[in-house]
């Protein structure tokens, strides 16, 4: 069989990158193998568990059921992209630690990227909305309640900081 390749140019975690992908590759394969972004986990590989979740143009996608070839021209954000300039972790990652929303950690990067999509909206979501928006992740350590608390706490903190800034102006 003749192998078929495609040159993919995209932005990954703020940097312009390019790589030649085998058209049979999933985006999970590309991110892990070509860029060593191992926060992108291989879980179910059929789009059910959410462990491979990344942001593409600001929206959440399970990268295991997304062809690497489709990433051409896209802006991709993985958990590694949340790292601060001096290697600091972000507020949402800290909240996951503080709320004990991490146990084995396998679902955590994917779950945090869903939280990032929510937090980027910059509005207050109801408890029900947060639960729905986080529902695409399976956590076998039964940490859903702690994950919910971490997301809600970070959302409220960011909103309070934003309104504090507005009042200061």
């Amino acid at each position, binding site marked *: *069989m003749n192998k*078929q390749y*495609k040159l993919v140019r995209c932005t990954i975690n703020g940097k312009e990158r390019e790589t030649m992908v*085998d*058209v*049979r*590759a*999933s985006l999970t*394969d590309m991110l892990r193998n070509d860029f060593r972004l191992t926060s992108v986990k291989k879980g179910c*590989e*059929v*789009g*059910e568990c*959410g462990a491979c*979740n990344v942001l593409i143009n600001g*929206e*959440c*996608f*399970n990268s295991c*059921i*997304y*062809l690497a*070839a*489709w990433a051409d021209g896209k802006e991709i954000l993985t958990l590694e992209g949340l790292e601060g300039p001096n290697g600091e972790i972000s507020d949402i990652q800290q909240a996951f630690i503080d709320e004990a929303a991490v146990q084995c950690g396998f679902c955590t990067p994917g779950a945090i990227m*869903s939280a990032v*999509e929510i937090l980027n909206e910059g509005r207050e979501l109801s408890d029900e909305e947060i639960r*729905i*928006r*986080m*529902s*695409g*992740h*399976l956590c076998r350590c039964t940490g859903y309640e702690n994950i919910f608390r971490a997301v809600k706490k970070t959302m409220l903190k960011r909103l309070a900081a934003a309104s504090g800034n507005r009042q200061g102006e």
Partner: protein
Amino acid sequence: MYDIKALYEAESIPDAVRLLQEHPEAQIIAGGSDVLVQIREGKRAGAELVSIYGIDEMRGVCLDGEGAIRIGSLTSFSHIAASPVIREHIPVLGEAVSLVGGPQIRNIGTIGGNTCNGVTSADSASTLFAWDAEVELTGPEGIRRIPIREFYIRAGKVDLKPAELQTAILIPKKAYEGYHGNYIKYAMREAMDIANLGCSVNVSLTGDKKTIRDVRIAYGVAGPIPMRAETAEKTARGREVNPETVKAFARAVLEDIHPRDSWRAAKAFREHIAVEMAKRALTTSITLAGGEIRE
């Protein structure tokens, strides 16, 4: 890695038609949340794929010149739910597609893929049946438009001719104007699950809100393909808005549906909940339409 023989990426609708003509064995891939999973399972392993995912002209919701709601076949479920046109004219479709899978699936899954795979449990399909939707198909001979009820042939089989693709779904103005609807999905989990039964109802009431001018009801998983329950519709059409009408309507669905036993649910159970879902969905639809059901 997926077991894919070759991938051909279409850049436009004519390009897709040309690629499908050049590669008659190839299968269409839209968002891939069904096709890629089936390849992973081995069902479509070794397939040649024509990817239409990059055709942006097939995305978005708008009103066309005749006032019909036009949904590009590649519009994702989350974009349908967020569309101002959908929210204003047919909010129930946004609600129905918000029950598909989970958030990430709703970002990749497309309404065209949901209807073209011909599956009875598709959360969008029963609502599209209940609103007299039409599908636009583009192929080598040009464009044709057929009612969605004729598009479904049998389980897993839709009326796509060689080298043809579905390019839009339309809901004509006369099919949505003055109607209010409700969709109920019955499943074991609240997310990432497939419906045991889906029921979509909509009504149009007379000016005084006392009589049912028109009512439409459709089910998913009540048979091999999505279906309308016409006996129930006839039973309630033109009747006064009251509890007896609702009850008679709900009972009559059993004349139309023929669910089966499966590992998800027994036939008897599906029939039982079908009646209850018809009752609740009609009651909600009447309330949304401004009617009142007095005991």
